[in-house]
């Protein structure tokens, strides 16, 4: 089973041990190993550290917004394929998704695409009154600094945001589309050899 099948599945299934992070501690411990793994396949240290921070924000979101709100399986799928020629990361959760989270503070919001757009472009969080809502902006800013990002995909509910070759948030509307709904959130980053 791959990450997208897992987050799409009608019934929640516990992922294989290598990819399953049932708790934040486990996810964080795996993220902490990323810089050294990336350096071992030839990445410069500064980019390895920046990419690890990027991944950590995506993994952290799975827990920050879903603890106590999981649809069935708690935790997240976190898979990193680290090869000399490419790095591909998959992160998914079967949580409440961005639309439901943001509806806590924007009760009129009911379009998953609009919710995803707000999450990536506005300072907003479902965890108000806490001052949050900068993680996904950081993800974009970081990926713009990392060379050879071939694709970045982020899906929540029935909204899909995808970039190929360049991460240009200025024209975000042209990168958003409606798809069949998934059970939470899913993200995928592919970077070719640095």
């Amino acid at each position, binding site marked *: 089973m791959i990450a997208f099948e897992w987050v799409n599945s009608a019934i929640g299934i516990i992922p294989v041990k290598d990819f399953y992070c049932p708790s934040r501690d486990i996810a964080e411990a795996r993220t902490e190993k990323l810089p050294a793994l990336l350096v071992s396949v030839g990445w410069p240290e500064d980019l390895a550290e920046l990419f690890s*921070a990027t991944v*950590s924000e995506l993994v952290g979101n799975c827990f920050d917004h879903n603890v106590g709100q999981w649809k069935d399986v708690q935790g997240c799928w976190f898979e990193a394929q680290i090869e000399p020629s490419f790095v591909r990361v998959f992160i998914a959760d079967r949580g409440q998704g961005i639309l439901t989270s943001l509806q806590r503070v924007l009760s009129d919001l009911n379009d998953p695409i609009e919710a995803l757009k707000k999450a990536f472009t506005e300072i907003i969080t479902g965890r108000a009154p806490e001052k949050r809502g900068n993680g996904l902006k950081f993800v974009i800013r970081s990926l713009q600094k990392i060379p050879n990002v071939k694709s970045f995909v982020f899906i929540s509910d029935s909204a899909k945001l995808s970039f190929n070759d360049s991460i240009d948030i200025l024209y975000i509307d042209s990168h958003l589309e409606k798809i069949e709904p998934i059970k939470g959130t899913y993200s995928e980053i592919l970077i070719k050899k640095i």
Partner: protein
Amino acid sequence: MRIDVSKFGTVLLSRPAGREAFLSARAYSVPKENIETIELDFSRVKVLTPSWADEFVSGFLETFGSRLEIIEGDNLSVKTTFETLNAIK
């Protein structure tokens, strides 16, 4: 006074960890009296996220306001984190 943030770890990732680091710093790293300015020195940190930084720095901001100074250093994840946080404020 200056606080070397790397004493809380060189890989600083999650919100709960950032919050815990702030509470520990407030209890043990900051003298109770006669503080003119606090410098948070991130120059020896290897990996920093906005989540960790937000929890840690926000706590100090509430207490010290304009008497707080941030030393970013050269690390790319630290610089990108503060670019993001500063763009928001």
